[in-house]
């Protein structure tokens, strides 16, 4: 459709230099974002493969596809790969890396070489984890609970621990880069109150990465030492406390879920504003709520330990705090919804994902409140109710946010439009497939089906079959974008600078941007989301 125009293409970050060295030694935040995109997509399929095997096993009540020990490894590695090698990096390392400098008018992040180091640490960690998978895997549950992980498991716990330890440093360095960049490198006129809400949410995410991940690091190190040197820090027969491990582990791992959801909320703000052509309702509230989520998120971790043996009084405190942490998230949902009121809504692919996000995140969040209630948690802890709850947030929320963001910024990243019809179809498949996969799990959990079990009573089979059927639809929904994004890089319509007519500095430079982002340093004299000044797009394709 536009092949003749390619020979007169402007110089941009993609065509400035060719060759593998120019990619593997790049310090350009946009290229690093693409390096991450490729890597996390790879691990997404590894994690998805484990999920597929889990769902295949659960088609029948008997344990007949894999052995019990193998099943333990499947759900453990599914969790670890998806969380540490896909979800935690996803939006920050791909969209954040690409967009943060562009959105604030900077030429790059504050520390470009550390950014590249961050990717290499991720790759090293990922390679070690792959080796772990093929040499026996991990069967401790993604949570590495002691003393099983330290004293009894016969799997590659040390290797997995070291791998995730290194991945943690990748995450810390990304967060550090973002905080310094946002504080120090905003273009003239880009005051805090003019920042896109995407930046506020990424900033909040980075705070969590900086303050929480080191605790995971030291905890994994202690597990490695305990296992390697036969210590007794977490061994109850030697005076150790397994709950100490859980306190330290969840001090990070609860805020980690906010590392996963805040960036999706970041995307949500940008997409909703653009496709309702309105300023986000209650900008200050949304910005402050991001910070509040980051702070409150550190105060609730022991709600994962209600039935583990913590004191009743601390359980009460953590329960109350867990209710409070829902408030800022709710504020954001109300504000996005209020933005849509009397807005001029377009049902583009990103907006479809945004709608999906609001509904599914709300369901996931509300079911979190069920779990925060001590009495209910006693009943549904360690059942499929919990699994459904967190998949609603992490998949229905975070992954849909990621996909929505990828579609929204794809023209900027690649200079091409993805095919809109296929985009909408994939979004629909993802939404239908997701709900079919995970809604039955709420019911299963409430009925009492435990998690991490390889076989189950026959009365649970119908719901399990529905869930597995849903997962195949979901899988197709995920594969489609991979195919058409790749297709679009060669055959997609060439994108203009601002095909969506969106607000934001990133849309004021070319698609794709030049290596140093802007021809001239921008000077900002307008408020964020100034949609009353931006004409709605008449044409999305512009030939060069």
């Amino acid at each position, binding site marked *: 459709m536009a092949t003749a125009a390619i020979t007169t293409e402007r110089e941009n970050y993609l065509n400035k230099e060719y060759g593998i060295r120019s990619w593997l030694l790049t310090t350009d935040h946009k290229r690093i974002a693409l390096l991450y995109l490729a890597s996390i997509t790879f691990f997404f399929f590894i994690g998805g493969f484990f999920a597929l095997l889990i769902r295949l096993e659960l088609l029948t009540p008997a344990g007949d596809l894999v052995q019990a020990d193998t099943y333990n490894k499947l759900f453990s590695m599914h969790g670890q790969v998806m969380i540490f090698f896909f979800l935690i990096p996803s939006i920050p390392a791909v969209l954040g890396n690409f967009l943060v400098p562009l959105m604030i008018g*900077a*030429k*790059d*992040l*504050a*520390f*470009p070489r550390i950014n590249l180091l961050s990717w290499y640490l991720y790759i090293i960690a990922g390679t070690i984890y792959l080796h772990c998978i093929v040499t026996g895997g991990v069967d401790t549950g993604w949570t590495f609970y002691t003393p099983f992980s330290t004293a009894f498991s016969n799997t590659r716990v040390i290797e997995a621990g070291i791998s995730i330890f290194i991945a943690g440093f990748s995450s*810390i360095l990304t967060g*550090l880069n973002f*905080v*310094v*960049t946002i*504080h*120090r*490198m905003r273009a003239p006129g880009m005051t805090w109150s003019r920042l896109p809400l995407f930046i506020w949410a990424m900033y909040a995410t980075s705070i969590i990465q*900086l*303050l*929480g*991940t*080191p*605790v995971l*690091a*030291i*905890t994994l*190190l*202690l597990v490695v*030492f*305990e296992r390697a*040197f*036969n*210590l*007794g*820090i977490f061994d109850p*027969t*030697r*005076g*150790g*406390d397994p709950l*100490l491990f859980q*306190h*330290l582990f969840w*001090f990070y791992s609860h805020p980690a879920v906010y590392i996963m959801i805040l960036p999706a909320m970041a995307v949500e703000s940008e997409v909703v504003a653009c496709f309702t052509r309105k300023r986000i309702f209650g900008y200050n509230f949304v910005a402050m709520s991001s910070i509040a989520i980051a702070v409150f998120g550190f105060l609730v971790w022991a709600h994962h330990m209600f039935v583990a043996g913590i004191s009743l009084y601390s359980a009460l405190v953590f329960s109350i705090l867990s209710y409070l942490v829902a408030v800022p998230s709710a504020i954001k949902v109300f504000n996005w919804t209020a933005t849509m009121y009397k807005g001029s809504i377009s049902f583009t692919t990103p907006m479809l994902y945004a709608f999906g996000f609001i509904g599914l995140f709300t369901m996931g969040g509300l079911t979190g409140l069920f779990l925060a209630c001590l009495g209910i948690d006693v009943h549904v802890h360690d059942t499929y109710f919990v699994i459904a709850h967190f998949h609603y947030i992490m998949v229905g929320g975070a992954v849909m946010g990621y996909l929505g963001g990828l579609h929204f910024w794809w023209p900027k990243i690649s200079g091409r439009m993805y095919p809109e019809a296929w985009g909408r179809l994939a979004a629909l498949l993802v939404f239908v497939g997701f709900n079919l996969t995970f809604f039955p799990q709420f019911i299963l959990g409430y009925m009492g089906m435990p998690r991490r079990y390889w076989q189950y009573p026959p009365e649970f089979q119908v719901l399990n079959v529905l869930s597995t059927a849903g997962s195949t639809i979901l899988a197709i929904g995920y594969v489609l974008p991979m195919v058409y994004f790749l297709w679009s890089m060669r055959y997609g319509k060439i994108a203009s600078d601002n095909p969506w007519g969106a607000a934001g500095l990133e849309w004021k430079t070319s698609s794709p941007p030049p290596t*140093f982002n802007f021809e*001239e*340093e921008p000077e900002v004299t307008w408020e964020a989301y100034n949609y009353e000044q931006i004409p709605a797009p008449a044409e999305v394709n512009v030939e060069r």
Partner: protein
Amino acid sequence: MLSDSPIAVEQHGPELLHHFVDAEQQRDAASLGMWLFLATEVMFFGGMFCAYLIYRYWYYNEFAAGSRSLDIYLGTINTAVLICSSLTVALGVRAAQMGKRKLLVILLLLTIVFGFAFLGIKGVEWYDKYKEHHIPGNSFNVDDLVKDYPQIHIDPRHEQIYFSLYFAMTGLHALHMIIGVGIFIFLTYYAWKGRYTPKYYTPVEMGGLYWHFVDIVWIYLFPLLYLIDRKPLR
């Protein structure tokens, strides 16, 4: 690009990286970056301080006995060594600010010497623990402590937790010292080459912040590990 033009290159030295607007922005970014990194280190060590807090609360007697078995003189001397090294670091940054290259190199070298002294003394202490069979693992044996303190009940399993934390905390601290010494070797080399001037001494400053932080960790480790209970026994 404005910063690529020949005139612009002349206006700033080769140390100014292209994505920064000016030297001040670069220095402010470096400073904030280092402080944030130190914040992550506070949480990193903090996890072990949490473990220490819980187990000292549970096993005070064993912690006290273990603490007494450490050499308070070596510990105090080591604390003094690190304090001296912080002095040489602070004076070194000052020398860089004033453009005194030779003085800077001497102070950086002195800092490295103090660093090695600390590590050497730590090595001696650990060797003592090895001889006394206080290193956790298969040859761990605290019969000597049980004998020395008949008035309190010492459970060897709990005593092992104290020593596990002792080695984990001092080990992690020593690793940070080694990294610090490595950084300072680089700084000394570049200082000797004349790279640091009153206009540009950021690496020295940042290295100094890191070194001071490692000193502060020890300032807390010393009383928590060595001074739990040194009261004369009845």
